[in-house]
């Protein structure tokens, strides 16, 4: 450990700590654009200037390691002047089109100007004109006028995705970020460049113009797109989820996440959801509440296991639920109903073990590990491939399916659904609509998605991560645990399901009530 002083405050830092991180550790703000802890040091924005000891020449904090006894100041007048001018240099050719810019509200130029700037601009000359609305492919749009050339995106494609699509072309104040030969920026991690872009130069096609960021709340959760279990933040409001961004976790995903994971929020939103339970008997559909449906399912199962025996029931589970849900489901099925035909349904057995070397895995389930553990605990050794024969030979007459939450990642979804439909009774817990389920007696029960419940996911290497409920999208949808409680004939405490309405909020009034 090294001792140093930041603005007079004594702190201890680890050997090798950069001054910029020491300042943050001491709880002081430091202006900077190009520095990113997940990338190499570029040292080009020249904003993180600090005074070290009485060295009259200011140093950049991002390329200076702390030394024993170092006295660091970023509140010195000389530093303040350097930062003020540093900001002005960044802004003189910036278009200042905040009202139509998607980054407004979370733009580092705005944030740092409010913190360190607040001066009158002196630039009276014509601004440099550069390319706008540059299409970088299917995911990203580039505005080179807004760009402050911090080179984070270029370093990201060089160092992290190692795809090297981006470069800075031309020089001086004509410099522009671009792709070589105008090829698109298409890699599985491209949208990270949008996250690390401190300004509105790189915007995501999926998110742009859809919401002002100050209308969104955010909460940390776990990405359920694959078995890596990246830590993420979802941004949402009353209308639903709008985007997902990675959150730092050294052991799991570092600072990044893949682009496929960013799409995972989509199936959570209402348009893709099963909004109420349905009971279909011989083609006659009848809607009913999820709670009612679960109670009905419980009664049915009780009767069917009594009449046909527990071996006539097959349960199909995917690795997309939480440990807590598996616990209650297995307890109910195995201990209460004595059902042992529980099958593990995977998204694609050929690609399950795929890994791209960075984050993206072929196992598209967040909790395969947890499911396997619980199956081991209940000594269940079944093979999904045996199920077909059992249904066709009518050994299994009743099928209970749990999942998948995200149908889009199961390429055999429809094929399986028609197989399950061959059993005379089908009870399906699903987050999305299951039109392919057409058994004689079908009961489809809406379940919650990962964003609507709390629970534990175990990732590919056995790391347990708990995720917390973000918001409610479909009122009345049940978690598997709630369903099991209802199926067992007990009741759960739920708020009465009424018409959904959002609370009115005036976003322009701050806490003190002033505009």
């Amino acid at each position, binding site marked *: 450990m090294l001792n140093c002083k930041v603005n007079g405050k004594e702190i201890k830092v680890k050997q090798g700590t950069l001054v910029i991180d020491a300042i943050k550790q001491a709880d002081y703000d430091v202006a900077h654009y190009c520095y990113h802890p997940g990338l190499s040091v570029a040292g080009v*924005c020249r904003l993180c200037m600090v005074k070290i000891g009485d060295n009259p020449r200011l140093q950049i904090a991002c390329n200076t390691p702390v030394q024993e006894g170092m006295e660091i100041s970023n509140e010195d007048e000389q530093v303040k002047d350097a930062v003020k001018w540093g900001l002005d*240099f960044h802004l003189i050719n910036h278009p200042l089109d905040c009202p139509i810019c998607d980054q407004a509200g979370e733009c580092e130029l705005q944030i740092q100007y409010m913190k360190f700037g607040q001066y009158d601009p002196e630039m009276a000359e014509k601004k440099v004109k550069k390319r706008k609305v540059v299409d970088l492919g299917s995911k990203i749009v580039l505005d080179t006028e807004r760009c402050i050339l911090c080179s984070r995106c270029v370093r990201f494609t060089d160092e992290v995705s190692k795809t090297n699509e981006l470069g800075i072309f031309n*020089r001086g104040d004509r410099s522009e970020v671009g792709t070589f030969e105008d090829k698109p920026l298409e890699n599985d991690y491209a949208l990270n460049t949008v996250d690390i872009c401190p300004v509105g130069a790189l915007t995501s096609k999926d998110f742009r113009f859809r919401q002002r960021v100050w209308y969104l709340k955010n909460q940390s959760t776990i990405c359920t797109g694959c078995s890596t279990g990246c830590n993420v933040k979802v941004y949402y409001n009353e209308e639903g989820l709008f985007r997902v961004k990675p959150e730092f976790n050294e052991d799991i995903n570092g600072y990044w996440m893949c682009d496929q994971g960013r799409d995972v929020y989509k199936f959570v939103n209402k348009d893709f959801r099963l909004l109420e339970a349905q009971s279909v008997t011989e083609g006659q559909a009848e809607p009913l509440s999820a709670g009612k449906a679960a109670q009905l399912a419980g009664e049915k199962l009780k009767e069917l296991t009594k009449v046909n025996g527990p071996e006539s029931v097959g349960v199909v589970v995917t690795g997309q639920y939480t440990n807590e849900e598996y616990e209650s489901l297995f307890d109910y099925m195995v201990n209460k109903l004595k059902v042992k035909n529980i099958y593990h349904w995977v998204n694609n057995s050929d690609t399950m073990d795929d890994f791209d070397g960075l984050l993206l895995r072929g196992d598209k389930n967040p909790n395969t590990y947890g499911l396997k553990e619980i199956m081991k605990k209940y000594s269940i050794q079944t093979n999904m491939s045996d199920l077909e024969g059992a249904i066709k030979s009518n050994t299994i007459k009743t099928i209970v399916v749990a999942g998948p939450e995200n149908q889009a990642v199961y390429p055999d979804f429809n094929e399986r659904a028609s197989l399950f439909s061959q059993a005379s009774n089908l009870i399906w817990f699903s987050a999305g609509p299951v039109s392919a389920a057409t058994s004689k007696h079908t009961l489809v029960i809406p379940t919650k998605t990962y964003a609507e419940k709390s629970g534990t996911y175990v990732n590919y290497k056995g790391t347990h991560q708990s995720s917390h409920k973000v918001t409610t999208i479909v009122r009345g949808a049940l978690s598997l645990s709630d369903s099991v409680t209802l199926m067992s004939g007990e009741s759960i405490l739920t708020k009465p399901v009424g018409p959904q309405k959002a609370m009115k909020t005036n976003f322009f009034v701050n806490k003190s009530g002033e505009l």
Partner: protein
Amino acid sequence: MAEVKIITEHYDKDEFISLEGYKKFDGYKMLKKAFKMSPQQIIDEVKSSGLRGRGGAGFPTGVKWGFLPDNGEERYLLCNADEGEPGTFKDRKMMERAPHQLIEGMIISAFAVNSHKGYIYIRGEYSYAAKVLEQAIKEAYDAGLLGKNILDSGFDFDLDIYRGAGAYICGEETGMISSLEGLKGQPKLKPPFPAIKGYLGKPTIVNNVETLASVIYILRDGVDGYRKYGTEKSAGTKLFSVSGNINKPGTYEVPLGYPLMDLINNECGGLKPGRKLKAVIPGGSSAPVLTAEECQKANMDYESLAQLGSMLGSGAVIIIDDSNCMVDMLNVIMHFYHHESCGQCTPCREGTGWLHKVVSSISSGTGRLQDIDLVDEVASRMMGRTICALSDAAAMPARAFIQKFRNEFEFYVREGRSKVKGVTDAQL
């Protein structure tokens, strides 16, 4: 004191260009001497000689060599021949008139720093010099002066030429290294310095053409012989490229510490008839300009010019007489730095463009009085805040021009025209 020809002694002889001719005048003799010395002895000689880098920064060469880490890693010796500072043309003359001098200097230096691979990074526009050097390198290889086991010394050294593509910034040593590595010519963040991590991440020494050639004469004349010329802190002779409003522009070798006015009046034949000296840029376009009055006190060495707030730089002396408009001249200089900024660091990328636009608005007659102070203010905030010195190089002349010739700038703003141009001498 007058012109002292040590490096340039035989530059007037065409035969000096070829290996045969070069040998006739003791060429490669010092290489043989060097091989009889130990590398450390050579480094010590260079250190004691007081030789300072002739490219512009004036850093002691022996000290630079001493920074190399002793870690057994492969080392590179790079010759910086990307002579791009406006007004400078001494290296071109050296390479065109005495290519073997540079090669010999490089082999000796490489032997001293224990490097087996060298490159000459030559300015893209110097196509003739590159051709001459290429021929000379071929001759040297054929004569066993380059390659394996040079002159049976057991020392190997390979040398290649790399031509630049016209960027001023590639004359900055780390920018040059980036360019040599095949990257965009942009300076690298320091530390680490090239001596620790340079070309391809290996310890690298970058020296100017004149610096490398000087090593030969330090060995020939000994430390005392070399120190006979120059001052205590600025030892030896130096080549100056003199241009501008002068009768005999050209390259002159004079001892460091030589009075500027003597250089102008004796060696260079004085100003054109009827003209008065207005100003001199003593060390290339980035050196702060000196007024005629300051020129009287100026000696051509590192300390004297620093005392006057300017610098020796690359030794490019640009003479400005009273027929020149300082506003227009600054506009040309600002255009150059705006064009040449690599765009990496924000203060330089944006500042050089800003300065150019403001100065050009003054010189097109649309400037405001406050613009004059703005130039000084912007320039002052570009100094000492970037990776390399290009930002300072743009800021220094801007500040000096405004401070020393403010009346010309004010006149231009008020009257919307130059104080000098389009006006007869009688009116001045």
